[in-house]
């Protein structure tokens, strides 16, 4: 978990390129590769988390807010539903921000609180992270209460262990890894690279 080397590599990649180009040519492929590695059992979650955090810091230091806004044409947010297991949400949040997307972090919410925030903010793409099966099942309640224009993207252990669960709870997409989250954000946000 070498921040300094990561920064050196980033500086090298940025020479003669715009920040957006550097992110697209270096950070995005690296994060996708690390995320895919986890899906295949080749990378540990701790590595995905630290990579996301380091990249997020690097990108934050070089990317003006205006570029993020331009990139995310649809309004996005992320939440952990009901329990206190926030790691999955933290990883996806970091990885998406490191990929140049902007999204609101709702922290931990129950269904009622989540629906209120989504409606207030006019969220169009909502990433929901869960670790416990009961929380994953509760996504169906959120789906019932939310306008169908809000696309729900779910992720977390229950969805990885039961491949049918995301459809059962009425989600629009399911991400198995941070790499999937980037791909889905690109597909749904209308502003991806």
């Amino acid at each position, binding site marked *: 978990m070498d921040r300094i080397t990561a920064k050196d590599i980033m500086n090298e990649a940025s020479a003669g390129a715009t920040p957006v180009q550097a992110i697209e040519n270096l950070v995005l492929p690296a994060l996708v590769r690390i995320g895919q590695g986890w899906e295949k059992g080749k990378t*540990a979650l701790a590595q995905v988390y630290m990579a996301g955090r380091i990249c997020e810091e690097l990108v934050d230091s070089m990317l003006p807010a205006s570029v993020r806004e331009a990139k995310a044409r649809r309004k996005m947010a992320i939440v952990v539903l009901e329990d206190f297991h926030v790691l999955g949400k933290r990883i996806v949040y970091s990885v998406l921000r490191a990929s140049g997307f902007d999204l609101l972090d709702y922290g931990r919410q129950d269904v009622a609180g989540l629906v209120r925030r989504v409606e207030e903010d006019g969220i169009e793409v909502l990433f929901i992270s869960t670790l416990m099966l009961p929380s994953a099942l509760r996504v169906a309640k959120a789906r019932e209460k939310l306008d169908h224009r809000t696309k729900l993207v779910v992720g977390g252990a229950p969805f990885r262990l039961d491949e049918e669960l995301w459809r059962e709870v009425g989600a629009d997409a399911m991400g198995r890894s941070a790499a999937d989250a980037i791909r889905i954000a690109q597909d749904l946000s209308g502003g991806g690279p």
Partner: protein
Amino acid sequence: MTRAEMSSLERVLTTLGHREPDRVPLFLLVTMHGAKELGLSFEEYFSRAENVVEGQLRLRARYRHDCLLGFFYASIEVEAWGGEVIYREDGPVNSGRPFIRKPEEIATLEPPIVEESARLVEVLRAIEMLKARVGDEVPIIGAVISPLSLPVMQMGFDKYLDLMYEQPELFWQLMRVNEEFCVRWANAQLAAGATAIAYFDPVSSPTITPPESYPSTGFEIARRTLARIKGPSATHLASGRCLPIVDDIARTGTQILGVSALEDLAEVKAACQGRLTVLGNLNGVEMRRWTPERAEMLAKEAIAKAGPGGGFILADNHGEIPWQVPEEVLTAISEAVQRWGRYPLSWVASHD
């Protein structure tokens, strides 16, 4: 020829010796279904040892499995440290907001005294009562969260990973305090009558931390901790993968390894090579929507993969079956073991 009927304990001990007992042992790890049996909320059910004892005994009478659980819920350890837990109607009691808010608090952290925690004492009472009821017929399984894995509840997973990578001194200080508590808690359960201790260690899984870090962290901690626990142990990575670290796990002194549904049971059995008994790996999350026919098929498949030669206990992949799994599925698993788990498994060759 059918072998003479063994007691559950004899069955389990035989398979732990990597020999074939009368049939494949079944550990149906049902913690929450007892509340359903008694018509109680989880909060009521877990408030009194008597309820848990009654629930466990009724569940065993119904499903004829081969263990009783002294384990209430994982976050009970957090209560001993002064943390909060959250009850819900449809799932396990969860740990609440982490009680270590800043890493600096670790410097003054002291391990709780087991006897001073009303909740832990309730678990010990349940184990004592179970032991009084079943004697040496049925193994009673106690449980601890490993020193390496407890901080996920103590401080939150993200903050814990930050600590692990960025403040190694405080990380090791936390490990020392947690080891002390883990040993105390495990030995108190053994003294109360538990036959063995389930050592839940998901953070050691290569799914969570890199396998190359296991020898200097999870392995070293488990080796030290298990050496001080005065009874047999079963290591469970709670749905995390194990294959890249099986050889090291076998050297921690544990006897049983819980296997993830993400890994192939036959491959894990081969990797354990008579050193570890394999426990697993029916997919508990999917189990919720299995038909009885599918439950039978998958239990049969698991027996075919890992049953021959002993060294195998059929169980779920996580160490706790979700509350949403219906009775008919649990019954189908139980019946599948009775039907397909009788040794010798002469049907297995034709199944292949």
